[in-house]
């Protein structure tokens, strides 16, 4: 166990988010059982008041989850000096088998949180609480993820052993190694570019289709997810190489360092925002047929799609720019 303020903070935050969601989950169960929109009873009034509490709790919880995701990566980055073999966050995440699951859970929770907040926002626009059951069932689905994240993260920190010699980005993201990360790294740049701009095209088309025809929101969300995955793979497979100007350094974290002009932030910030907006757009567009929120969907879904498209474009433009301005030329790998 390594006791540092950042680790304490991360454990504290996960514990508190867990408690907040458990509290909200308890209310959600009560609400799902007793909710009766037509009643004017005191019980119903109490439940309606509680919805304010749940919204507030969850807004804060998901906002904190986002900051904790960033802190988690910063912390991994800064701990790289404490492990033999760790040069950046990758090495620290590799210290034991809990590191990567924690990171993935944090990302998934962040995206689920955006969907929940979007549904909540839409629900508040309808006078008859049209999505109340759906959003509380969704909350009950997110709850176990948050609890798991707390557990996995705590084990990750508790079982950190400074004597372990860890492997860093050099070996994990290397073309010759085995495993998913290595396969992603060895993905040929041609395939990666094809995937990146292919999914990008899909996003643009489905987004434009939605803006023109007001249909296919779900398809837009799904292509947003595909674009996100393709983008992360491309960053590992070839974009990072151009930023490092090194033909074999595939690492998704080192690009966050000052030595590389914080290039990572210019890629990850628009990418994460665009993906979460795409998810939000898709999840609210599904409810177009409910009369009480129809007009809200008509107003907000296109706005979200529009913003998501802009951010995706910014991401693609920046990704292309980083490659273009690099001094690395990889003619040989292009065959």
């Amino acid at each position, binding site marked *: 166990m390594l*006791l540092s*303020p*950042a680790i*304490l903070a991360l454990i504290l935050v996960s514990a508190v988010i867990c408690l907040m969601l458990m509290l909200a989950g308890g209310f959600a169960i009560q609400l799902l059982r007793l909710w009766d929109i037509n009643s004017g009873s005191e019980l119903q009034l109490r439940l309606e008041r509680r919805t*304010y509490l749940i919204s507030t709790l969850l807004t804060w919880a998901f906002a*904190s989850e986002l900051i904790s995701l960033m*802190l988690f990566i910063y912390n991994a980055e800064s701990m790289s000096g404490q492990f033999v073999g760790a040069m950046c966050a990758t090495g620290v995440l590799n210290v034991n088998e809990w590191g990567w699951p924690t990171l993935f859970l944090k990302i998934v929770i962040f995206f689920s949180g955006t969907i929940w907040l979007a549904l909540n926002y839409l629900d508040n626009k309808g006078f008859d609480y049209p999505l109340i059951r759906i959003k509380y069932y969704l909350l009950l689905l997110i709850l176990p993820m948050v609890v798991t994240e707390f557990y996995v993260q705590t084990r990750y920190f508790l079982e950190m052993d400074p004597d372990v010699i860890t492997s860093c980005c050099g070996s994990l993201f290397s073309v010759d190694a085995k495993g998913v990360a290595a396969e992603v790294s060895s993905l040929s740049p041609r395939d990666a570019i094809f995937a990146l701009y292919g999914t990008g095209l899909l996003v643009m088309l489905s987004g434009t289709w939605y803006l023109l025809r007001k249909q296919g929101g779900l398809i837009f969300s799904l292509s947003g997810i595909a674009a996100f995955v393709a983008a992360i793979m491309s960053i590992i497979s070839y974009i990072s190489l151009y930023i490092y100007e090194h033909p074999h350094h595939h690492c998704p974290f080192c690009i966050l360092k000052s030595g590389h002009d914080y290039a990572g932030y210019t890629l990850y910030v628009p990418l994460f925002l665009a993906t979460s907006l795409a998810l939000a757009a898709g999840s609210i567009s599904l409810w177009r047929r409910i009369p009480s929120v129809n007009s809200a969907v008509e107003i907000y879904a296109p706005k979200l799609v529009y913003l998501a498209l802009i951010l995706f474009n910014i991401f693609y433009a920046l990704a292309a720019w980083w490659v273009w301005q690099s001094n690395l030329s990889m003619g040989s790998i292009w065959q």
Partner: protein
Amino acid sequence: MIEFIRKQAYLVDFTLSSLLRRKGKNFGLLFVYTLIVFMLASVMLFTHSLKKEAGIILQQSPEIIVQRLVAGRHALIPADYIEKMGRLRGVTSKKARLWGYFYNPVVKANYTVMAPDHLVLTTTEVIIGAGIARTIGLDIGDYFTLRANNDTFSFQVKDILDKHSELVSTDLVLISQKAFRVITGIPEGQFTDIVLSVRNPREVRKVAEKLVQKLPDVRPVLREEILRTYDSIFSWRQGIVFVLLVGALMAFVIFAWDKAPGLSAEEKREIGILKAIGWESGDILRMKFWEGIIISLSAFMLGYLAAYLHVFYSSAVLFEPVLKGWATLYPQFRLVPFIDGLQIATLFFFTIFPYVVATIIPIWKASVTDPDAIMR
């Protein structure tokens, strides 16, 4: 959009005026809050910059220090060990060092006495660290005495070490090798340890392995290992201090729960009035959100600024003795100022986050007051 911004502006405006209407209470809260931020931020900034400073200093130290062990204890190493090592691939230089500690009972301080071979000193000349010079009141040309083996040795101060590296050089005494051997009685041909420089960091471990194979009675100490130990020791110390401060933090959270969201009878009445004249629960929540933001950000910035000044401009006068903790020769140095995202995010989670969480439920309770409550 413009409507939304205007609405927030109205809410902020109202929040500010209502904060100012309850000056006593809110300044009290702000003060305690700022103090908490100040304490935590001071600890973080201080230990972090010590860690950095140590790193900078170690950067110049050799990659490998070779010590000889006799019966598990550190012993003198003969000069011919350098030859015995033979050629080691990747090692760019090998040097034997002479150094030791001397205790001066008058000023109750430990000196680190070194006899570097690259400096040309006569047997009666000495170069001393700024801390020693300050404590004893010496200047160039004055005489400096070392006591050892029931004998007193006098040296003339030739130079005083540069202030920049005071953290390590404050207690340093540099004399000639000859003088060192006379004072300590270490015979010719024996040294304290041997240092090796290795160009490529990836080869350090290999070199160390080979060394142990060739000379089984030596122990190689690697710089990266020292750095790593420093890193975790500083983080660990910081962590311990934070754990100790958790008590203060809890007290603050309870205080915030109690005070912040304004559940005094008067404020409750005010919220009742607002709700009756057309404010909605959400508006009250947003107003209280702004209240939290205003208080938190002010406390955070004030506390952080105060800690910054405290650590970097007054050299952390408040807890220098606790955290630095060695001898009486305090180095006087200015740490290099820095701000880093990890620290700010950590500090956020130790201060603003508990405050916000502690106030959510009381705020919500206040916001769902029945709008007709004031009519009853």
